[in-house]
């Protein structure tokens, strides 16, 4: 019964994504509004509490915004792109909830410990990167704008965390 409900949620999510894509061709604002409404609707159809999911939904929107900015260049943030990106993020989150509900263990004590260690190492990598960029800029060897500086740190944190996590997942801890 629960799996049937999750299957319905997936269908709704796919239908919503198609609706947003179609509306993006008509009007950017309509598409954006639909995407936001879809995100909230998706979160309410889940049985877990909305506020537990809200950070993930916001994070997916932020990541989508960053990806769009990087792809289109600064100042070229397109609302339909952002909406579609956000909805794709929401669908990925919905899929992970569906997998969890169907009994698949996504995280256990080992993966949580690895995630925390990866976050710690990633913090140090980012710290070193900030120090290097600061001294490069201070010594005049390389001049960076705030956007460039922020972009480098953003991707350093994200990618180093992902790579370190992947490495630790395939390596034992003793």
């Amino acid at each position, binding site marked *: 019964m629960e799996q049937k409900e999750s299957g319905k949620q997936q269908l709704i999510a796919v239908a919503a994504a198609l609706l947003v894509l179609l509306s993006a061709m008509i009007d950017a604002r309509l598409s954006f509004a639909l995407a936001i409404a879809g995100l909230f609707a998706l979160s309410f159809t889940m049985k877990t509490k909305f506020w537990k999911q809200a950070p993930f939904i916001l994070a997916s929107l932020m990541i989508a915004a960053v990806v769009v900015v990087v792809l289109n260049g600064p100042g070229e943030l397109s609302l339909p792109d952002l909406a579609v990106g956000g909805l794709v993020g929401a669908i990925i989150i919905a899929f992970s909830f569906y997998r969890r509900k169907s*009994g698949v*263990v*996504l*995280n*256990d*004590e*080992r*993966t949580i410990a690895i995630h925390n260690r990866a976050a710690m190492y990633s913090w140090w990598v980012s710290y070193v990167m900030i120090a290097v960029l600061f001294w490069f800029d201070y010594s005049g060897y390389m001049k960076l704008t705030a956007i460039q500086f922020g972009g480098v740190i953003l991707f350093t944190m994200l990618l180093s965390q992902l790579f370190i996590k992947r490495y630790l*997942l395939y*390596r*034992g*801890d*003793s």
Partner: protein
Amino acid sequence: MKTRIKELRARYGMTQEDLAKKVGVRRETIVFLEQGKYNPSLLLAHNVAAALKSKIDDVFIF
């Protein structure tokens, strides 16, 4: 740390997937436990030992 998980699992005709489901962890965690590449928490060690109807000392060789 060496373990006898594989041997005990075979005795009870359990797959890694079965054991993982019983103790509520990912299958990969059981793989790493069997290879001695992961030190489990006391709770997980207890659950694994219980699922294999053994004592912790019989499953994990310190």
